[in-house]
């Protein structure tokens, strides 16, 4: 899923601002406290973990769904937080030292990325640091670590798991705050999305952090190099998965333009429809999977026109007879079923020409939300094109409103018009 549109709104996102500021404040405060005389303990261990975290930050990845993540760095930071016993000498660093070490290591690891112009967004860094701060506060700030020293191994493992789960929850909430603000999506829908996303990779990262801490009780800092190899392998799998997802999306975006090249549709039509559809879908609280299907369907919604002998004048399906619209939709769905995208995408395209409510029908028809969105957005774009004139936008919206409750879904049209108005206010 492309996240590029969300950056447009970042300026007005208070959640993001608060989190970034809090993260920076925490980093500075903990570095100052730790750097004061007598504040920094167990230098050798700290340096080893800092190196591990910096390395993890260096090899950070973008997860499918556009989430920026540094699994190795996060696991290392969690491990440093949960570290209670070492073979030579039990570490007794405080919560603030954990944050200070992580902050410095992250800066070092991010450095090369900044140099080549791939700096991660400030909110992801701040969020990671705050999350670690919470974990460190929970474990080392409350004396839990002292008590854990006396526990049996199994008990220690339970305490560690509890801290990790709490940390994951905090991370999900912080991410949801930023995203809900940036995407103008309902907070609950975003939070649900984040929790689902965290459940898989987040729990694996958390488990790895706990494992490193446990293994370090015997292996000392040697646990770190031993862990790096399998972790890199795992991350490699993820990176490749994310890369092929991205290639798929790029390819479908690119190939969706063949209808333009053949003169079937106007230049930029499918791309505009997909961007606007995704914005509307996000605001209506769709989850990541639904949004991806929506984007694919919107990009390929006119692919059925390739099977027409002659292009429709101007490519605007909104002026075609309903029966032709449905035929194009069905032909397109046939093509899409042959592709490797999920079958839901074909179903969405198939239903895109169905009116919101058919005549003589008392029951609400089962048209998927994604199809209703594409229907409205497609009509809107057919009427407006890439014209910048405000009057045309208003006319188009007016025409959609006239068709509301029968042809178009009122909720979708309202959401569409608020999205369009906001975009024109921002001058996009």
């Amino acid at each position, binding site marked *: 899923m492309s996240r590029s549109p969300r950056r447009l709104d970042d300026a007005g996102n208070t959640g993001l601002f608060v989190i970034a500021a809090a993260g920076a404040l925490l980093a500075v405060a903990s570095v100052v406290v730790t750097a004061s005389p007598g504040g920094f303990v167990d230098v050798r261990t700290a340096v080893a973990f800092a190196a591990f975290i910096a390395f993890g930050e260096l090899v950070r990845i973008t997860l499918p769904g556009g989430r920026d993540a540094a699994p190795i760095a996060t696991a290392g930071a969690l491990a440093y937080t949960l570290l209670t016993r070492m073979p030579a000498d039990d570490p007794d660093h405080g919560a603030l030292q954990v944050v200070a070490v992580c902050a410095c290591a992250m800066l070092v690891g991010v450095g090369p990325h900044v140099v080549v112009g791939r700096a991660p967004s400030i909110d992801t860094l701040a969020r990671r640091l705050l999350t670690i701060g919470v974990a460190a506060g929970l474990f080392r700030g409350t004396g839990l670590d002292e008590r854990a020293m006396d526990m049996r191994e199994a008990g220690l493992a339970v305490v560690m798991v509890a801290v990790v789960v709490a940390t994951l929850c905090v991370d999900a909430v912080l991410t949801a705050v930023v995203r809900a603000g940036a995407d103008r999506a309902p907070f609950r829908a975003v939070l649900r999305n984040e929790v689902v996303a965290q459940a898989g990779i987040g729990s694996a990262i958390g488990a790895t952090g706990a494992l490193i801490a446990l293994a370090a009780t015997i292996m000392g800092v040697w646990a770190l190099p031993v862990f790096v190899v399998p972790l890199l392998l795992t991350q490699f799998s993820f990176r490749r998965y994310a890369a092929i997802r991205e290639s798929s999306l790029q390819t479908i975006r690119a190939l969706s333009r063949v209808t333009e090249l053949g003169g079937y549709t106007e230049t930029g039509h499918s791309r505009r429809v997909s961007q606007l559809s995704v914005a509307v879908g996000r605001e209506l609280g769709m989850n990541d999977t639904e949004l991806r299907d929506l984007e694919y369907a919107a990009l390929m919604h006119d692919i059925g026109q390739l099977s027409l002998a002659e292009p429709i004048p101007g490519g605007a399906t909104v002026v075609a007879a309903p029966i032709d619209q449905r035929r194009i939709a069905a032909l397109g769905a046939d093509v899409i079923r042959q*592709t490797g995208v999920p079958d839901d995408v074909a179903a969405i395209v198939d239903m895109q020409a169905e009116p919101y409510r058919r005549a003589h029908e008392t029951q609400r028809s089962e048209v998927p939300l994604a199809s209703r969105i594409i229907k409205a957005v497609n009509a809107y774009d057919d009427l407006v094109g890439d014209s910048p004139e405000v009057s045309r936008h208003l006319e188009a919206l007016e025409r959609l409103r006239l068709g509301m409750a029968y042809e178009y879904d009122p909720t979708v049209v309202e959401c569409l018009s608020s999205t369009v108005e906001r975009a024109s206010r921002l001058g996009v």
Partner: protein
Amino acid sequence: MNPLPLKARFFVAAVVLAAAPLPVIAAIRGWDDLSLVDCVALGLLLVLTDSIVARGSHDLAKIALSSVISSACLPLVGGWGTILLASTTVIAYDPQPFIKRVFNASQMTLAAAAAAGTFALLGGEAIRPDSFPYLLLPFLAALGAHCLVNGTLVAGIVSLYQGVPVKIVFHGTMAGSIPGYVGYGLFGLLLAVLWDEDGAGVGPTAAILLLLPLFVARWAYAQYAEEQRAYDRTVRALMTAVETKDLYTRGHSERVSAASVLIARVIGMREDRVQSLRYAGMLHDVGKLGVPTRVLQKNGGLTEGEFASIQLHPVQGVEIIREIEFLDEAVAGIQHHHERLDGRGYPMGLAGDDIPEFARVIAVADAFDSMTTTRSYRGARTVSEAMTELRRCAGDQFDPRMVEALVTAIDEHGWSPDETPAYAPPADEPFDQEARAFDHDDPTSALFRDRTS
């Protein structure tokens, strides 16, 4: 399933005979020092992971899960215990024929013996609080020995069964799976550290903690494989949609892609470039959609304007696919696939070596396919007629090296585009080397595919 050749039968017999006494010796010599609880727990885990995965597939999980457990055995139950446990995999649930299971368990036992010997020779011992970093060297060496023996024996049987030189099989099987092997072997060391009473002492539940990251890795791997297949289908289906415009070119893109890959293999192109070329061949005509249908299907000579619109199609194709990042080299191939060696081609009139290699390959494949299929103005030519024609134009229009490569490839494999495997497995897959080397077209070749762990 084909019967095993005689030599292969001897090989299997030798391996089984060599391995058979080992568990007995191990049981006699090592019995007193064995921790029964650990042995039973590890044995159960080993059989369980082996069974689960045998039923699933030959993917990452296979290597990951069972090699994690088996490499954890060394520091936990010592050399004799490891050998004994390796032989228990013979009772794992496995739908494969009995003889195959026995062979697999035998080669695993021999590999375990090699690992145990190496471990002991280098001073490897059970885990103690002061074991690290000293235990790392014998452990890594033992992993290496295990990998070597296991790989050699599997490569041996595959080589005898398929008649491929052992070196090639060994290369194909081993080269890519070593990182995965060592990586997950190290996970085994961690399992041992967590499990061992003298270590972190978490006990067998440590396995559960370790399974989470492994499970996620496996999930990502499965997703990747699925997405890769989906991606292939997507490109193909969209190209089919584009081709609906011109009846005579149906299937053309796919055949050009297949022929390009044949050429690439003969000239020894690197595997990742071959994959890129495969997509380039598939997409080379995407720009044709910009050419009006009546021009494409016209029978007589073309006017200047019509010819110009045809000449534009490589550039229009590039316009479309330029944003697909991983196709970078393919883009040049598509843009220049109508250049001629003498510089009289289009769109840019490049000559000789200025024409990108991909473009020179695609040009030959493209011409070959259009000659051997029916067009609006003529019937299809035979393969040998097309070859003669290609050779005639080599030097002026085509790169002679590519023409000869195509001739060689078709002499060797024949040309039956419908049977050409449309989906080649991903090139850079370190965990799936066995599948790639043995799984190809022949379903029976799966015989010994999944036993390098």
